[in-house]
């Protein structure tokens, strides 16, 4: 049973790191600002969510497990609103440089 849980955790965290890799490569290689924003927000949130999913069965007690879920939800809300704000900043032109 413990082996199954460990394999699940390693698979989820490995997938999360892969999505962070995809996000970083997208941020570095995509041609313009909005495509880079797309790569960053999608890959970043999915990667973070998969890492939290992999860590959940390994958490020592219920309270810290629930705290992991709270951090996950906060990151989702924060990244969603931040990406909207950045996209609005890009399309409005932003303050003069």
């Amino acid at each position: 049973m413990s082996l199954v849980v460990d394999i699940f955790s390693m698979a989820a965290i490995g997938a999360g790191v892969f999505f962070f890799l995809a996000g970083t490569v997208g941020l570095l290689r995509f041609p313009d600002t909005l495509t880079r924003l797309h790569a960053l927000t999608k890959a970043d949130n999915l990667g973070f969510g998969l890492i939290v999913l992999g860590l959940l069965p390994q958490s020592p007690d219920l309270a810290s497990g629930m705290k992991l879920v709270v951090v996950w939800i906060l990151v989702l809300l924060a990244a969603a609103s931040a990406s909207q704000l950045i996209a609005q900043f890009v399309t409005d032109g932003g303050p003069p440089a």
Partner: protein
Amino acid sequence: MVEFFYAAAAMLLLLTGLGLARMLWGPAPADRMMAAQLLGTGGGAISLLIATASGITAIIDVALTLALLAAFAAVALSLGEPGTKQQDKGINP
């Protein structure tokens, strides 16, 4: 299992560090802010991995703080500098 957590954290640190090249290159302020956002979520993920690997659950609070600061940074960018046109438009549309 603990070694795997630390290896994943080191890998994430490398990736977020590479992402900082976008902060150096720019060209737009939004691109630099995106690299800062990546640092926020990446740092949060690293904190969670280290918290679980070491068993020190207080490190989860570091991840919470990083996520919150990344959100505030994006809000500050969209408000613009005080006294500029962008901020006036936001307050008095």
